[in-house]
């Protein structure tokens, strides 16, 4: 299949809904398996740290959450560009569904970091470069969420959020380095593409498993919520109505194709004999 046709098809919510059914359970089972293996391995079998003892084990929650927090925002920027430049409908829905997940991951990263900070740094919270950048990331997520909630029309809300996400993605490196040079206490990144981790393999292997599991969880969550959002956004279109009614032909007057019907379609069905 040529690339252009595939690209156009990828933007179609209907096509995505058709093919994505099996993906959801695939990603979800992968995520559960990986997270179970990584967590049990990390908490029970990995050796304790020579300085931090057992308290280092929160790394198996903290690092995956922090990686997700940043990747999700990057994904938001990519989805925003796809929506604004190529007007890809699906990207708008991705933008809508990812924000709560990213907010949750960021909050988890901050929370687990605070728990870890107490025994190792002696303080719940330190305004250091990385923690501050993550806190700002949380505020950026809150801003996206608030903007979406403030605009009633979903399509316009998606486009406004897309623009804000792009501006945010350009700003993130500047924010990151500004607070990094400002002051830093946090250790460096655990996984780098260029060098091997400083930890022994028995410690970082379960972490890697958990990170992969967390990304699978993100994918499962994205697919599941995207399928819901597609049905909600397209509820007045013929294919969704046909899907909801099973093989029966739709009952009652058809709503005008462009506007979402004021009454939800299930009430029409329950009113029918």
């Amino acid at each position: 299949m040529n690339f252009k046709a595939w690209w156009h098809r990828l933007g179609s919510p209907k096509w995505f809904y058709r093919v994505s059914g099996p993906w959801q359970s695939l990603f979800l089972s992968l995520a559960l398996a990986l997270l179970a293996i990584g967590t049990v391995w990390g908490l029970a079998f990995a050796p304790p740290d020579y300085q931090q003892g057992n308290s280092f084990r929160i790394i198996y929650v903290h690092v995956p959450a922090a990686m997700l927090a940043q990747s999700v925002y990057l994904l938001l920027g990519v989805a925003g560009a796809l929506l604004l430049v190529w007007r890809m409908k699906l990207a708008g829905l991705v933008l809508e569904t990812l924000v709560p997940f990213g907010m949750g991951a960021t909050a988890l990263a901050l929370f687990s970091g605070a728990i870890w900070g107490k025994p190792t740094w002696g303080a719940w919270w330190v305004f250091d470069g990385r923690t501050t950048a993550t806190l700002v990331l949380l505020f950026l997520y809150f801003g996206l969420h608030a903007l979406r909630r403030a605009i009633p029309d979903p399509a316009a809300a998606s486009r406004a959020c897309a623009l804000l996400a792009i501006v945010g993605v350009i700003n993130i490196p500047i924010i990151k380095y500004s607070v990094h040079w400002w002051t830093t206490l946090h250790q460096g990144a655990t996984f780098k593409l260029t060098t091997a981790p400083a930890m022994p393999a028995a410690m970082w292997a379960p972490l890697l498993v958990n990170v992969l599991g967390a990304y699978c969880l993100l994918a499962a969550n994205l697919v599941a919520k995207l399928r819901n959002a597609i049905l909600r956004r397209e509820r007045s279109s013929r294919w969704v109505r046909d899907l909801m009614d099973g093989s029966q032909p739709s009952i009652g007057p058809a709503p005008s194709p462009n506007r979402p019907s004021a009454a939800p379609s299930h009430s029409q069905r329950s009113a029918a004999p």
Partner: protein
Amino acid sequence: MFAVQFRREWLCVLRSKDEALNPLVFLFLAASLFAIGFGGSSDRLGEAAPAIIWVLVLLANLLSLEALFRRDFEDGALEQFVLFAQPQFAAVLGKVAVQWCACGLAMTLLAPLLALMLNLSAAALPTLLLGLLLGTPALSLIGAVGAALTVGLGGGGVLLALLLAPLHLPVLVFGVSATLDGGAGLAATAQLYWLAGISVLALTLTPFATAAALRISVERS
């Protein structure tokens, strides 16, 4: 286009002086609240002064930005602006330039008074002024994107602050750190270059984003 828009906005500011003056009054009001809150301890106030001044400048600028597109949106001029003010880059820049003159530049000029009020050390004053001069354009330019996105939405002020405060953080960090270094008798060249760099980057990119945001907001209404 830039000149036409600049003249028009300047006339608007001159004919509604109160609206333009309110953020400046807020700046001094909030500064005196800080001075009172510190309970007359002028040493501690002087130590905190760089942070207080920069945060207040940031907040006062947010108040001024909230009104940047509001009146045009209410009387319908914004639709004409989006349709006919071409090239949009220059027109948006004209609008933001006037907002900066009426707010950012004015605050920079008034900063010595503010510094006196908050007992900032005299050694820090030149760096503070230079930092404000280089940093406030970035505040206005980035802020215009947020103002364009939120124009016409209910509760715009709080929403705008929520959107913009994280994006303004780098300016605050470099501004405060430059002022502190200046007060300690160190060269603050690096931070000042950073402020200038952020402003130049904002100057080249944000007018496009503001124009796109205005289009989204006008289509929405």
